[in-house]
């Protein structure tokens, strides 16, 4: 099985936010939650770069490590998913996540957290593939249909890449060699450094 990852080539990102919009639309993501976002570093200064960021589906994921009810699991493709039936909305995964991926709908008292929501790599959740129950909780399961995440598939500059980690890393390195510069594989060191095989 391939180990799937995301890679954002920031030198190509034009901050169009189409990935953000497509994601929200594809999964009917709840109001106030963005599974993917575009962050612009050094905005307005020379050499600014925009990075599209979502859950990086880390190796040895911190969210899974700190979850008090152990609601996370990693699929054979290396996608980190969670069960909203088990989640108690404590917020621990948000504290541990290096990428700010977990978010919570504001429900109930004290503005406290509902069931956590995050990027699923368009792979749904623990429910049976492509069922209405799965769609209602986690959104579309494109992986089950043999498609890649919508954000990367429709990226107009092919800045955001999704797929086998080894292949997209190779594509990026080729680009860097050809054009002579690259601002880095954003998040990779933090998400996958602990494991050379990643």
């Amino acid at each position: 099985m391939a180990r799937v990852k995301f890679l954002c080539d920031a030198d190509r990102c034009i901050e169009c936010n189409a990935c953000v919009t497509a994601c929200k639309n594809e999964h009917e993501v709840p109001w106030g939650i963005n599974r993917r976002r575009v962050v612009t570093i050094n905005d307005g200064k020379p050499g600014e770069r925009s990075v599209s960021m979502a859950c990086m589906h880390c190796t040895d994921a911190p969210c899974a490590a700190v979850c008090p009810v152990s609601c996370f699991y990693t699929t054979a493709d290396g996608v980190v998913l969670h069960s909203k039936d088990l989640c108690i909305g404590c917020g621990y995964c948000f504290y541990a996540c290096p990428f700010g991926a977990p978010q919570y709908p504001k429900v109930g008292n004290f503005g406290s957290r509902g069931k956590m929501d995050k990027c699923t790599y368009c792979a749904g959740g623990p429910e049976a593939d492509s069922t209405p129950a799965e769609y209602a909780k986690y959104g579309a399961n494109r992986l089950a249909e043999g498609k890649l995440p919508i954000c990367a598939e429709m990226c107009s500059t092919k800045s955001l890449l999704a797929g086998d980690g080894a292949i997209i890393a190779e594509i990026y390195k080729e680009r860097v060699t050809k054009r002579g510069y690259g601002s880095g594989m954003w998040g990779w060191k933090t998400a996958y450094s602990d494991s050379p095989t990643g």
Partner: protein
Amino acid sequence: MQLSSPLVRRRSRNLETQGRSAMARSHSTRKACIPKAAAHKASILKALCVAFALLFVVAHPAAAQLSFKPTAEAVQEDKLLNALKEGDKITGRITIPDAMAASLIQPAGRDWRDFHRSKLPVIGGVAIIGMLVLLAIFLMVRGRIRVDHGFSGTKILRFASFERFTHWLTASCFIVLALSGLNISFGRILILPLCGAQAFATMSTYAKFAHDYLAFPFMLGLVVMFLIWIKDNIPGKIDLQWLKQGGGILSKGQHRPARRFNAGQKGIFWIVIIGGSLMSVSGWFLLFPYIPANVTTMQFWTVIHAVIAMLFIAAMMAHIYIGTVGMEGAFDAMGTGEVDLNWAKEHHSLWVEEEQAKGHAPSGSTPRAMPAE
């Protein structure tokens, strides 16, 4: 040249600003020359010429070389990561309303994970199991602390009903808060394997609700306790003497004089007040996570909340021990509110004298009760 090249983007942006300033200039010129139509037309032409000239200069490749090198000077993830200080994060600008989403990478999440998974279980384990062991040893060595002179049969009111209500309000909340909190820290290791994921998650959900709601009566209890008992808990010289002799706890038949609360009880009072305040403040930020709206601040408060909780629980275990199993006659103070006169004289001799002077207590025939034998 690629359309998406930053160089082109930057240049077109310059053009835009230049055009705008030229327009502004032509506008002001028009204003100044309203009476003469001919001069007016001429000035517009002039302004247009200037604008076109500027366009040419800016668009000219030679002029563009004066600016930065967009690829060489672009931000590098490696450089940003290396420049990060402890607990810092890489942030930028976002166009969505969620301000926390502006944080791109926060490696400090790993430290928090390490704290939660490696350090906290050790702190909690040592504090709680260590206290259990200490108390067991103490019980074995010292045994139950008896009333040396036996029960007199005469009672003296130690805690009024409102005081007892406040104590038990706070205490019952504390026990639920402590158990539901420990469930968050240790439940996954200790309870989850026993009852399965679904049952454990359901139980934890209710535990979390209890934790969230009971925080409020607990905080209320803290405030009331502080107000009603602060006057009896100011440390004084007498406490030093009490502490020097270990309060007579360690050896039989040794009792230091004490007012309403001895140094040990004052210690418990201040542990509850200070520990409880820290728990309340840190807990408040966790209850309302959108107040700090900053992951670093929230991480800080969770660490405070967890560490203080472990120490607090250990201290309260000692308090519960000495109030029940550890000392004969002590539980009555918070149970019925009335303690035996002999118990009171042994542990709070000065307080008994004060109460007797005020006429609140039955004056025993012998102020210092002697053994019956």
